[in-house]
């Protein structure tokens, strides 16, 4: 009886999973086959990398990759530093205005820079940063989510560990560096993954603040490339699409265990 229940569920789960992978599988199919096969499924269809070559040659994807890489690295690095310092202050100091300040930080959880495109555009242009990679990242450098997560983590660090480190002679920064940061590892990883994928995938804001190939990230590049007006071949567009997602997808496939686990362990909720 119990056994059967289980197998019915297993089948259902698998069916859903395959359905879930279908769009992805389809895009791979179309990217790796000549365009005649974009809508025809034939196991004997020849494999080709031609679509990739054409996409690569038709738009400066190398540059887009570089831009995106610079973007996510910069954003992540700044976020980590800034959030670590802020979270440390919130978690471990009792200071004037702490609760108010924390509430002000939380505002950003609800009203993210994504929503404030118009005014943020003004600010960025006021800073004379339009059409640069820092312009894309700057509004996200102070991440309320990161601060919040790390604060939670830091608060969870047993006070005894901090006191032990202090008795052993560590300074405030010593405690941060030697105790909190290493203990926050899972949170850092989880947050890092969220941040990287968020900024790798971010679109609307970079679309607004960038104009040129030199600053445009992959997503915007892809959108510009695949605009229907240009009527670029569907297979080539999927190839470009696959190129855009590939690094993240590969990283995810390689590290999926850690990814899922660090997510769960970081207790993001």
């Amino acid at each position, binding site marked *: 009886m119990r056994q059967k*229940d289980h197998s019915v569920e297993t089948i259902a*789960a698998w069916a*859903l*999973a395959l359905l*879930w*992978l279908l*769009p992805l599988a*389809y*895009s791979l199919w*179309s990217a790796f086959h000549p365009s005649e096969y974009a*809508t025809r499924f034939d196991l004997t269809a020849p494999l080709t990398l031609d679509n990739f070559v054409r996409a690569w040659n038709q738009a400066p994807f190398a540059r887009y990759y570089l831009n995106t890489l610079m973007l996510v690295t910069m954003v992540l690095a700044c976020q980590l530093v*800034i*959030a670590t*310092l*802020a979270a440390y*202050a919130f978690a471990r*100091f009792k*200071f*004037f205005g702490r609760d108010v*300040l924390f509430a*002000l*930080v939380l*505002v950003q959880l*609800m*009203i*993210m*820079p994504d*929503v*404030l*495109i*118009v*005014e*943020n555009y*003004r*600010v960025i242009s006021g800073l004379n940063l339009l059409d640069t990679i820092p312009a894309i990242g*700057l509004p*996200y*450098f*102070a991440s*309320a989510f990161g601060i919040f997560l790390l604060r939670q983590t830091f608060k969870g660090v047993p006070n005894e560990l901090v006191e032990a480190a202090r008795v052993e002679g560590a300074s405030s920064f010593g405690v941060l560096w030697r105790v909190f940061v290493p203990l926050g590892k899972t949170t850092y990883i989880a947050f890092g993954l969220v941040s990287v*994928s968020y900024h790798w995938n971010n*679109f*609307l804001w970079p679309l607004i603040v960038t104009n040129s190939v030199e600053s445009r990230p992959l*997503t915007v590049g*892809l*959108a510009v490339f*695949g605009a229907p007006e240009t009527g670029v071949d569907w297979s080539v*567009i*999927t190839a470009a699409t696959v190129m*855009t*997602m590939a690094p993240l*997808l590969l990283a*995810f496939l390689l590290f*999926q*265990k850690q990814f*899922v686990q660090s*997510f*769960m362990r970081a207790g*993001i*909720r």
Partner: protein
Amino acid sequence: MVSAVMSAVESKAIRRRNWQTNINAWLLLLPAVVLLAAFTHYPILSTIYHSFHSLSRGGTSEFVGLENYTFMLEDDVFWQVLRNNIIFALATVPTSIGLALLMAVWVDKKMAGRSFLRLAFFTPTVLPMIAVANIWLFFYTPGYGLLDQFLKSLGFSGHNWLGDPSTVMSCLAVMVVWKEAGFFMIFYLAALQTIPPELKEAAQVEGASRWYFFRRVTLPLLMPTTLFISINALINSFKLVDQLVIMTKGGPNNASSLLLYYIYEVAFTFQDTAFAATLTVTLIAILAGVALTKFVYLDRRIHYQ
């Protein structure tokens, strides 16, 4: 006398210590505070300010009171977009949450190929919306898109999915659910794993069926997670518009347009930043409303610990 002097000295020491703590803390917070002020708080205030001023096409702007708001309330597109967004939220939030829960329950138990299933469900969430939109765009292409091909092979006729105001929203909703459900699954999974297995055993001993246990124990215990996810999904549904840029540009006839996309359009295509500010204030008000409901009302009712 002596003790008075002493306590004065000591309280001075304490005050100095407090000073130091304050300065240290504020220094640590400085970068975050500056950036948050520049890209969250100032913009919010500035948006509100601009919503009360006229647009300055090459001239100067002046205070116009509620004029922009009256204009907004008379704008049919605004109402349509707002309605769209609410429908979109109602369509995507419960569905993705329900699916996420189902997925989480499945991949939480020892099931053949559990980690493959997890992977399959989670993968869409790491993909860029832009890429996803490209792929799904082709699904929905009338005539030779995958969906039409499939329907045709079953003998149904094709349909202009994204070109038809009555289907375009559902199409986008399906895609968004596909992309988001796996993300929420992870939260449910994490929450499920914090439910001690003894609870299940205790219930078993008491004779509870699996379904009873799920309904009466698992589900209530997941309420905080459900709340968290709902809030997030709700916020997302007001924030996520990338797909529109690729797939429909809000059309046909604004049938798929969402509030933020409309703001984008008004601000950047129509170059009407005053009106965009007014719309943004509405959006901010909605998001703040969601947040307040959570903090003030729901949080109190749902936490057990």
